[in-house]
């Protein structure tokens, strides 16, 4: 009886300690040095979009280590777009996500602007 009791206790303790942490969001894809430096320089070709990107998106999406997928780093964007789709990612901009407040610092942006910015940031950057 004592042996069975000990066995059960050990099993319980092992299973309690080996619980995996709760999953939240897609896996983090760590960018390499090339993508980190690319993200710092990429800007949309369209000047209106570039102005919005400069004042609203660039602070987080061009700097590594802040949790936001980097501009031009498609590997980080693909899991998000596959999981939620473009409209789902757009919905994340509307409601806010992570450190990004609702409307992603751009209350005057239209959904078209947001879609174009998502497309720009998720397109693989060319050096």
């Amino acid at each position: 009886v004592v042996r069975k009791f000990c066995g059960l206790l050990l099993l319980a303790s092992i299973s309690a300690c080996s619980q995996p942490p709760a999953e939240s969001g897609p896996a983090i894809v760590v960018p390499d040095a090339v993508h980190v430096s690319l993200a710092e320089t990429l800007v949309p070709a369209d000047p209106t979009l570039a102005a919005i990107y400069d004042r609203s998106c660039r602070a987080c999406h061009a700097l590594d280590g802040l949790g936001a997928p980097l501009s031009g780093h498609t590997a980080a964007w693909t899991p998000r777009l596959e999981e939620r789709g473009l409209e789902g990612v757009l919905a994340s901009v509307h409601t806010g996500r992570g450190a990004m407040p609702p409307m992603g610092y751009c209350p005057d942006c239209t959904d078209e602007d947001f879609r174009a910015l998502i497309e720009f940031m998720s397109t693989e950057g060319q050096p």
Partner: protein
Amino acid sequence: MSTTRRAILLGSAGLATAVAIPGVQYAAWSMKDFTRDGYNPGLPPAPDGEVAWSNWSGIQQSTPKQIAVPATEDELATAITGAQRVRPVGSGHSFTGLVPSEHLIVDASRFSGLVSSDAATGIVTIGAGTRIRQAARELDAAGLACRICRTSMCRHWLAPSPHQRTARAVRCSRCTRMSKASGS
């Protein structure tokens, strides 16, 4: 004194209990839902003729008649003329209720970027809605701030000291060393 089989078994049981109790407590704690009922960090529903605003955490929400995002001083003047209560909004990361308004919220985001800079005096004029990283990036380009590396992160720093103005021309890793050497 001899160690009996019974003592070993009892000792193991005690050890297992000592590990299991905090383990189970931790598991129970981490499975709890601490979100208050009805909490929604997203934008609140806005009635007709109103728009929705929420801060980052969702603690502050409001549905003003308009969120004005003027691009020029004339547009700003037009927006606030006749408005009852005007509240300015920044980036929405504060927790206090300074922004919510039933009437007008003004977002200065479009007044962004470097307006003018004087490298000799180190005096610059930047738009009132410029976020700090954009300010740092543009000042770096103007030779009035320094970029340094911290671990894997590159940062722009606002620091118009002569050392750092020199340092901006060199690569990130060297810049860190120079900053340390210059004591800044």
